[in-house]
């Protein structure tokens, strides 16, 4: 049995040539004997030992900082800020690695809440007045954008380029908002840097949306960048 197009000999019963896809005439109705089984590998949980290492490291750092502060000052003093930062680090960077399939749609809101609480604590501890007018809205908007993007990327089967492009345009708009919050809180000048970032993000976001909308361009990018 040969492929009429490639000229290679094929296994008896092969339905089509594995090289060119040309259907093979099989008058005897033979079926090819498979060289590989049909068994697909199980997806196993590959927990990173680095997570355990980081957890131990975080706990050790917390114990060391507490001990130093208690010995030196008799109370936590600046140690409370370090402890809060370590807790934030644990929630954001270590906790997801302990789960089999960490869902970003669940973890990103948790991270946002943890960040908001940390910033509130920092604001109260340092006697600042920047939480409600700057940190709360900025971190909140970032959390909402991140969660929405993660949900779209996770649950939509298609349209990744459009989602990422859209995210870039929204982030561009957010840059202007960020500078506005900065202006009303810290009395800085408006539009010193945000316009540049917005234009750059708008251009790259629009390009990605175009890639997502035009199939030949999308396939070209996938092929060239081996995605």
């Amino acid at each position, binding site marked *: 049995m040969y492929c009429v197009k*490639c*000229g290679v000999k094929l296994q008896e019963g092969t339905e089509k040539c594995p*090289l060119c896809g040309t259907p093979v005439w099989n008058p005897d109705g033979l079926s090819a004997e498979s*060289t*590989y*089984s049909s*068994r*697909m*590998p199980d997806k196993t949980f590959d927990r990173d030992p680095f997570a355990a290492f980081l957890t131990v490291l975080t706990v050790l750092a917390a114990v060391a900082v507490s001990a130093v502060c208690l010995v030196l000052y008799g109370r936590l003093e600046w140690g409370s800020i370090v402890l809060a930062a370590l807790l934030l680090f644990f929630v954001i960077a270590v906790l997801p690695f302990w789960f089999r399939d960490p869902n970003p749609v669940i973890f990103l809101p948790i991270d946002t809440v943890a960040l908001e609480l940390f910033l509130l604590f920092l604001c109260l501890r340092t006697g600042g007045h920047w939480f409600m007018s700057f940190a709360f809205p900025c971190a909140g908007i970032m959390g909402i954008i991140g969660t929405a993007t993660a949900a779209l990327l996770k649950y939509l089967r298609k349209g990744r380029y459009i989602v990422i492009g859209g995210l870039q345009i929204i982030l561009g708009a957010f840059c202007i908002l960020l500078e506005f919050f900065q202006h009303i809180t810290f009395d800085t000048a408006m539009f010193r840097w945000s316009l540049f970032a917005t234009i750059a993000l708008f251009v790259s976001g629009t390009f990605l949306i175009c890639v997502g909308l035009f199939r030949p361009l999308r396939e070209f990018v996938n092929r060239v960048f*081996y995605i």
Partner: protein
Amino acid sequence: MKKIRWFRLDTAALIFPAIKGNNWNNLFRVSATLKEEVDPSVLQTAVINLMPRFPSFYVKLRKGLFWNYLQNIDSPPAVREDYAYPLVFMGSAEMRTCCLRVLYYKNRIAAEFFHSVSDGTGGSIYLRTLVGEYLRLRHGITIEYNDSVLDPGDKPKVYELEDSFSKNAGKIAGRELGRKAYRLSGIREKGDFKHLITAVTDSGILHAKAREHGGTVTAFLAGVMLQTIIEIQSEEVPEGKEKPVRITIPVNMRRLFGSRTLRNFVLTLNLGVDPRTGPYTLDELIGNITNQLALKATKQNMAAEIASNVGLQKNLFIRAVPIDIKHIFMKMGYSSYGEQLGCINISNLGVVECPDPLKDYIDRIEFIIGPQQTYPNNCSVSTFNGKTFINMIRNTGGSDLERRFLTKLVELGIPLSVESNDIGGSESQCTASSAE
């Protein structure tokens, strides 16, 4: 010899744990197809029996503070039925159990290795010894043990476990880095599925054809592959903008340095041409590869190459850096230069010899290397009992490269019979067709 508990990674092996990712790592497979169905329980006993003889193979990958290392395992890996495709991703959890897999399917026994453990030559010695032990248990045959099939009753030799890189490093370090090569591209398969096309031909005809064109089998296949990739590039890239086309050829250095190690002792050479310099005929391409091989694959040149790798490994400052930081820089270096200088590997295991009683029971011995991190196709070659097996693997949808390359061989007068894992299981069929 006292019991060995752990091994330092050899110089070549150090890079593989650093560059492994969540869905890719560097694996290779050697397999033997017998003339009868494999009995898994006998195979399991054979795997157990080889444990004391191959201490450097029955290992798990461990992470130290500054380097990875291989630690001996107490219980051997369980043999398992083969999957729908070769070289299924080996995750960190599996590597922490054992870096070696033994698989069976119908008449085939396969061993898959994480590349830090050994190279193709070491792997094929393990496989032949495993098959020898299996057949001894199953049929009671008497084998004349030699360097290709080791006696499982013997103790491991010091020279089999040595790091030949450190031993043979030259005094002067020298490495040539050229322009980045052309990238073969493709739309990556979802998941881990790998397409394998095996072309089988008569080794006598292939050898004669290679000589007719003035090269060895490796140089001939590399020449045909160069011509194929130049052709693909010319259709995709405007004239004058072409990148160099190079084939990565692993060189077994055991012959050059008289080493008998079972661990890694291979270095790769990136050989090819720059298509901007003008068109090349096939004979010119084969001549080019032959001359570059003769020029570069010398003991002195290889010793200088080894010295540059060993020098980095022994540098005090580098040694003092914690492993995770080291891995970040190794990954960056590998993605910038490690894979950027070649378009595809052609790894030729050469003629795989077996003692006579074994030969009567074995139909094929094949060698398969997995796709690289940043390019989708790879090609590996082995010759056994008068047949040459060209295994072409890819993790992308289209079979353009294989079609062009193998059709060229047919046009040159080399008869080929072609098989694929796509006709196997229904799931693999679906995966293949959905991507195309």
